[in-house]
């Protein structure tokens, strides 16, 4: 158990699927050899295949205290990184169209905006995903090299690149499939919750760049932090697939509005735009209570009152959304 735990809350009602977080992460961390196919942060359309595709049905995680089996996703599941033949077109003067190679057959955002059907109407929403920096990480337990550790000071889960031998038991164990194998280095890697930024008092790149301002960052155990308030005080944010048993520290405010039909303010539960069963699939049965709470807060404001929870979710400025403190003790080199 770490002394403190960094956490992130993402308000799915505000995500516009612009992938700015994805690119912020990619440019900062996975613009290296072997990392082309990796997206430590990705935004997938739900319902949908996800990335790697069908990750939510592959396996891993805990059941009755035991790690659950899982195959490794293949490159077809992630989607090969492709390049364009600019050289041939632009420098060698070949009169060919600029084409990607290898031929794209799947990819990180392959089924964007496809969504699903609710009776005769299409619906979808975006689900941004990073490593959940779990309290009970299956990856850590699965590593025979003890290369994965949870930082005592802030609960961030990282892979020691010196100890990692690329066995990939962690990838199998992670029920969220948020660890990636770099065949060039022969080691596995993952989201590091931007700990080098946090140590300097800067928030995670994905959160800093988010135009929808839907990400909240802070210590879960800090009563002043927005994540503490959203998760533990207002109780309007839930982890993804809680039944996988890893206790994620990334939480989601579920999509709750507007209803499919009817007047503004009528309950999503009367005529759900997003089928409630699907939200229960993703966030567990507590999602119903969370939506009820959110709707009560909304009603409060519609009647002229003030909702602390909704004011916080608006997240007007960085000070509201992020509570990041640089390390008090800097190591002097």
């Amino acid at each position, binding site marked *: 158990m770490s002394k403190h735990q960094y956490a992130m809350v993402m308000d799915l009602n505000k995500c516009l699927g612009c992938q700015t977080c994805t690119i912020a992460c990619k440019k900062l961390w996975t613009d290296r050899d072997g990392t082309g196919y990796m997206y430590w942060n990705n935004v997938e359309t739900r319902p949908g295949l996800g990335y790697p595709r069908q990750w939510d049905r592959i396996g891993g995680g805990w059941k009755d205290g035991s790690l659950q*089996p899982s195959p490794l996703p293949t490159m077809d599941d992630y989607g090969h990184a492709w390049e364009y033949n600019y050289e041939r077109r632009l420098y060698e003067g070949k009169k060919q169209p600029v084409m990607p190679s290898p031929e794209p057959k799947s990819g990180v955002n392959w089924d964007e905006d496809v969504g699903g059907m609710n009776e005769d109407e299409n619906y979808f929403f975006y689900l941004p995903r990073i490593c959940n920096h779990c309290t009970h990480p299956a990856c850590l337990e*699965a590593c*025979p090299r003890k290369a994965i550790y949870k930082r005592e000071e802030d609960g961030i889960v990282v892979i020691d690149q010196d100890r990692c031998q690329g066995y990939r038991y962690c990838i*199998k164990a992670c029920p969220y499939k948020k660890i990636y194998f770099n065949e*060039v280095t022969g080691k596995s890697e993952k989201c590091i919750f931007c700990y080098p930024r946090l140590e300097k008092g800067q928030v995670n790149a994905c959160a800093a760049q988010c135009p929808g301002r839907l990400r909240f960052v802070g210590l879960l155990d800090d009563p002043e932090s927005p994540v503490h308030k959203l998760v533990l005080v207002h109780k309007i944010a839930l982890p993804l697939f809680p039944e996988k048993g890893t206790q994620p520290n990334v939480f989601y405010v579920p999509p709750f509005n507007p209803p499919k039909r009817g007047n503004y303010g009528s309950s999503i539960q009367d005529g759900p735009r997003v089928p409630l069963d699907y939200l229960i699939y993703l966030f567990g049965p507590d999602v119903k209570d969370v939506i009820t709470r959110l709707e009560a807060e909304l009603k409060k404001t519609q009647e002229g009152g003030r909702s602390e929870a909704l004011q916080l979710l608006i997240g007007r400025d960085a000070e509201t959304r992020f509570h990041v403190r640089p390390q008090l003790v800097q190591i002097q080199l």
Partner: protein
Amino acid sequence: MRIRQLLIIASSVLLLSSMIWAQAGAKPAAGQSLSVAVSSASPDSLLNGGPAAWNQIAVKRVALNRTPPLYDTDEPATLEIQSVDVRTARTGGKLLVELSWRDPTRDAIALADVPDTPPETRFRKVQTEADDRFFDAAAVMFPAKTDSGAIAPSLQMGDAEHPVEIYYWNATRGAMLMQAQGRGTTRRTGQNFPVNSTYQNGQWNVIFELPDLPAGTTVAFAVWNGSQKDRDGRKYFSVWQALE
């Protein structure tokens, strides 16, 4: 499922008994010794001279065991490689060990060269081609302290009092010298060693150049089969063999 569990238990018992035997510090039994030829050929000619250089040296067939599934989530694996043929020769202050074994699948690739320039300065990066393949490999393990008398270290990578040296070769990533003091402690030293490998007609032939080891030193061998997703302790292993 029941049969698999029984198999796991049976093989665990086998493995454990060999571990206990190894940890008890008994000398390898008769028949578990390796004769070492004294060669007049140079280490380099034995390493790189092809099969002719080894013609006069006797072969010992060493039985391989399969580790039982180590984790609840491991897929079971069958004993596809029963044995490894070993030849050893002393020359020029070196001990050369040749391992040959049958493996119908050659699990090895040529990794793309990574340019020395920083990736951010390059238009193209070297890409991961596949994330789910494992490669053939082999290793020779021996006690780091060769003066430890009759005590053979634990076959599970030695222990705190009996560290081991592991000369590891991977069909894709090459030679790596490792050290360990018990299971889970294996670490790369960053050093490598001369090795030569060939794959022909469904057979691997790998020659390791080790420092000379005194007579009586125990050595053990391991083989990994990439197509069986072998890595880590998921492998084939021999019991200790004493060098004559």
